[in-house]
């Protein structure tokens, strides 16, 4: 049994708008983390990250972020990733009002 692997999502910033995007199971980029692919296997994560990195025309700086399953889909674990799903806390700007 390999060591414990925390599930991941692949996330990046959109080239044109700069906002947070997540990779879906069917190779699209979504602005809603709940629609992202929750990756539970380390080897699969590596392959998916390579795919994301091969699409620089959309995604800037893709990386693997820890996530957990939720009722509607994957949810962030770290507060930084949670902020990326919402936007800033000082104004109702960004995803909290746009998505």
């Amino acid at each position, binding site marked *: 049994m390999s060591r414990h692997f925390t599930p991941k999502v692949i996330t990046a*910033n959109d080239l044109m*708008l*700069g906002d947070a995007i997540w990779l879906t199971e069917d190779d699209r980029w979504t602005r809603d983390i709940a629609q992202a692919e929750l990756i539970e296997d380390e080897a699969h994560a590596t392959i998916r990250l390579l795919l994301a990195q091969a699409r*620089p025309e959309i995604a*800037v700086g893709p990386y693997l972020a820890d996530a957990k399953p939720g009722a509607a889909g994957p949810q962030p674990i*770290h507060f*930084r990733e949670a*902020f*990326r799903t919402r936007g800033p806390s000082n104004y109702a700007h960004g995803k909290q009002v746009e998505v």
Partner: protein
Amino acid sequence: MYVYNDFDEAFVRERVAQFRDQVERRVSGALTEDEFKPLRLMNGLYLQLHAYMLRVAVPYGTLNPVQMRQLAYLAETYDKGYGHFTTRQNIQYNWPKLADVPDMLEALADVGMHAIQTSGNTIRNVTADHFAGAAADEIEDPRPVAELLRQWSTDHPEFQFLPRKFKIAVTGSPTDRAVTKAHDIGLRMVRDASGAPGFEVIVGGGLGRTPMVGKVLRAFLPKADLLPYCDAIVSVYNLLGRRDNKYKARIKITVHENGIDTIRSLVEAKFAELRPAFSGFDQQLLTQIEGHFAPPAFRSAPTDSYEAARLANPAFRSWSDTNLSAHKAEGYAIVSISIKKHGATPGDATADQMRVMADLAERFGHGELRISHEQNVILPHVHKSDLAAVYAALREADLATANIGLVSDIIACPGMDYCALATARSIPVAQEIATRFEELKLEHEVGPLKIKISGCINACGHHHVGHIGILGLDRAGVENYQITLGGDGSEDATIGERAGPGFSADEIVPAIERLVLGYLDLRTAPDETFLQTYRRLGMEPFKALLYPTSAAEEKANAA
């Protein structure tokens, strides 16, 4: 103020055209992100948590009304209706779209502005005393030399790839409002025995991961030697500065590791070599630049109406007691416009507010505006007879908060609400502290107190030099806030001392409240400031305020 000549104009336009082409090539796929990133950073374009961010240089914090209106236009057209004034006298836009950035840069070029060298391992925007040209205690206006340094450092072929970023600050006053001792090079104007103005040159100051107070490299440098001497410092650093470790690459570490005496002898040797090559053109240029900064035609008028308005309107009196500073010209005052309304984001101004400030500068302020590193806007030259009108207009625009230098005049970096490097949020902490002290109605009684908040160790919020500094960190996936006490960014620059374990996001505002209310009991008289009380008593009584339980336990154990 300085007006672009044909060379500046052509240079900035060419840069915009280059960047437009670079963006097109990135979008078409001809450039990879790895290739594009250094190009966008050279032009001040960052990629943050939720969007791109464009950092526009406000050279030495000086703006004219036309420029301020253009900043308002950018905020409205390409952002969400506001801009964020930073702790380095710049302005940042938090929501530009990549495709719009070349147009934004073009609009900046239209008013003699740019975003060049607001990022990267280059010499960044040269900052200056925000009261330059107006302060009563000033030897000379430092902005002409700041402009000379800007021209020298912009696109300087030798200094585009330094070991790390490089920041220069200049002040013309003995009272240091430019935090010169926390810069890579700090220049403080002083006079020699004969009364001639020159500079005390300070090197190796900086905050961040390893905070250091700058050291005096040269006690007196004649004004005419400034460029070759700065050239010598940066040349020595360029060769000696470490490139193996990003965290040891700033000149403060170079000075620390090699010793100030070694650095001095290397700089002096390089200076001796460079000085003869400076045959006087730089001084001719400086004379031309000085012409651009000639003082305005101050008028002479009675100030009775100002005194009458102060008597008639307590709110105006409170604002004028708090937000005005002494001006060198008879009958004038320096107005600090607080961009720190209680509960609002420190440093954020709306497009409408920018226009109001531009109009006021034009009508009542000899056409000048300044951005302070404390994230406020200054009208440096207002005649006292116009202050009541200025105040009324500011009030209309929600810009009349009377809190300059008080608890709620907080410096805060964007923190994790925007910044990709941040480890915690800083804006909500600033908002909550200001709101709480407004509820308590105590800040005027508390008096001068500088709270500074950074959302990561890089210290853009200058927390090390806050009388109370707050540093936001990520502790095991939770925001945690460390407090430092006794920091000071003035001519007596001191790095604050860490008080103890950090506080959670819920605990930090009550902790600050305990500290400030407790200080009221500790001070000997109402005019003993927080910093003076701290210096008199040291950390212990403040620690007891911050950690009441552990202090009580210690007492019980001792009994």
